[in-house]
């Protein structure tokens, strides 16, 4: 069965995965900035990249990476979840309370993840049913969960002494410079990236964020996917809560407050745009690593911690400005290429 129209063969330059190349370039840019910064710090203070130093860098980043990856899944579907800070706080205390009562650590982590997923489902239902702007709903649930957390926790506190020593050791031990927590976070990161890259529902997250109308037309179950994204984000925030408990050994009613702005910054610096449909979780992990490294780099080169917040803010502004300029240039290139191929085709 051949088509009767004679195919018009015109050599179109192999553009290769232009889309992927742009994405890779974006991730390489963050990696370059990160490596440059760490190298400069190492020159200035040789103890910085010692075994303990590297271990601390990775440990600091694990919590933010987990929550930022969950948040990225939601932002890719063109939504946002501001309640992750409160979810982290309440799930950390829940795990601690369970452990305090003599529960086994593995079950405590599972409990934290389940509780996080439950809050994620609440967010997902509110956003997908009411078709309500996600920022406002999750701002509401941020307050609600924080309030419930402080009422339930009150002035109680989980201290390292009440936790099983194995759990706390797990929090800071590792194989030479590679802490267990970082390995766990890496496993979760790769799993989520693999899912988003290689599974239908994962691709549909991107489709939903890229164009909600086209997604509806293509038969993508919009509400189910939004709900799934929020449940995953809540579950990861829950897991991060359990790991926070292991790492810091201390949880009270204020844990995690204000964390959501850092998480959103990591997601945006990591190349996932608010407009949805683009960016990768690897980029977000690098963004998280970059932000937390700043908090470690500055004290070790003697810059007072006063500067940290200003630098984080300026870094975020730079990232979104660069993204915008990059996007404009890429669209220009694509349009020019489309015009060339068309005129070449029937000159």
């Amino acid at each position, binding site marked *: 069965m051949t088509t009767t129209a004679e195919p018009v063969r015109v050599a179109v330059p192999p553009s290769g995965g232009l889309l992927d190349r742009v994405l890779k370039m974006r991730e390489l840019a963050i990696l370059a900035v990160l490596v440059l910064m760490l190298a400069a710090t190492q020159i200035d*203070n040789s*103890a*910085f990249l*010692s*075994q*303990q*130093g590297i271990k*601390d860098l990775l440990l*600091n980043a694990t919590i933010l990476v987990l929550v930022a990856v969950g948040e990225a899944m939601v932002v890719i579907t063109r939504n946002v979840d501001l309640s992750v800070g409160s979810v982290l706080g309440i799930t950390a205390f829940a795990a601690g309370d369970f452990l305090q009562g003599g529960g086994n650590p593995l079950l405590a982590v599972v409990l934290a993840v389940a509780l996080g997923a439950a809050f994620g489902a609440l967010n997902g239902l509110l956003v997908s049913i009411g078709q309500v702007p996600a920022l406002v709903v999750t701002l509401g649930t941020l307050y609600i969960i924080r309030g419930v957390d*402080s009422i339930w*926790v*009150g*002035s109680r*506190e989980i*201290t*390292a*002494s009440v936790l099983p020593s194995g759990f*706390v*050791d797990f*929090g*800071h*031990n590792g194989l030479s410079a590679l802490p267990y927590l970082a390995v766990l976070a890496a496993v979760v990161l790769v799993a989520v990236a693999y899912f988003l890259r290689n599974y239908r529902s994962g691709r549909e997250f991107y489709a939903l964020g890229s164009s909600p109308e086209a997604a509806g037309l293509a038969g993508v179950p919009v509400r189910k996917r939004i709900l799934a994204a929020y449940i995953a984000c809540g579950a990861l925030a829950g897991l991060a809560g359990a790991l926070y408990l292991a790492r*810091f*050994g*201390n949880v*009270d*009613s*204020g*844990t995690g*407050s204000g964390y959501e702005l850092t998480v959103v910054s990591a997601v945006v610096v990591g190349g996932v745009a608010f407009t949805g449909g683009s960016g990768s979780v690897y980029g977000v992990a690098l963004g998280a690593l970059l932000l937390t490294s700043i*908090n*470690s780099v*500055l*004290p*070790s*080169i*003697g810059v007072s*911690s*006063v500067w940290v917040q200003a630098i984080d803010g300026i870094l975020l502004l730079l990232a979104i400005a660069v993204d915008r300029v990059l996007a404009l240039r890429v669209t220009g290139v694509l349009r020019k290429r489309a015009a060339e191929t068309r005129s070449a085709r029937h000159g």
Partner: protein
Amino acid sequence: MTQRIAPAGRLGVALAVTATVALGLSACGGTTKNSTDKAASSAPAAAVGSSADPNASTKTGLTVAFLPKQVNNPYFTISDNGGKTALTTLGESYKEVGTSSGTDTAGQVSYVNTLTQQKVSAIAVSAQDPAALCTALKQAMSNGIKVVTYDSDTDPGCRQLFISQASSEALGRSEVDLLGKQLNYTGDIAILSAAQTATNQNTWIGYMKDELKKPQFAKMKLVKVAYGNDDAQTSFQQTQGLLQQYPNLKGIISPTTVGIKAAAQYLSGSKYKGAVQLTGLGTPNDMRAYVKNGTVQGFELWDPAKLGSLAAYAATALASGQITGAQGQTFKAGSLGTFTVGAQGVVVLGEPTVFTKSNIDQFNF
């Protein structure tokens, strides 16, 4: 028919004009800092009306409200409960209100206003900021409400009494001595404080620096003051930064229960455990695990419960007219004994207790 929208042009111009006019106006002299810098009202506000009558009977049925720097903070929970037990023994009623964040001055002011509204007999407050509460506290005092500060003071003019846990000087100097003994007076040291704007922290650090000028501390050098903002994760990362920036740091003083706990947690999980000494102010329950595993040799604190109950007794004494806050007056504080009002209305609880492996198990707070 031209139709030009100069939408907000006029608004923008209006703003710029008002700003420049005011700027011009001020050129001809204005109230500057030194032109108005008369001495800030330093004398403690005397209790309104009645002179002190030491043997007036303690009134019952008073309501004393505790307003800690931060609700849900374990340290304040212990101290406020101490106040509660003292008040119930005296037959008064106890109440605790406060903000959930330690740096929400606006919130603390609105709580003082609310308490004034509810016409409580006395307020015991640990101030987040020396001046922010002044207007509100003065308002309360003018409504006949007795004001006592505890743990963290305000300007003397905004309260009648300050219950100091231990004299700031004693605290500052004793922490340096404690660390000096542990390092046998050699090596670089650093301080991990709470929020930059915490008044009691800055006063203690002042005395620590003065103590370090003494000859026996010649070989001990303070290299850095870091701020953990009373947040576990920030204190954690600040401790990390200190050790990375000064690899041969020998000792850390952290005069805040949150800071010392986070530093201890970091040290006990890193290679610096035992190599770097840590002391400061911490609660026995928090630090018991770290004293046992050798991360911390010794630290000190006062008993917050005693501080809370002394504040309660002082407030009741004021409300019953037994004292007015003037220097030299004395009042009984139940099992704690009698206390005399020092200069500027300061009442000192006593010497801090030092906790070490040997005596830590006798304390439970």
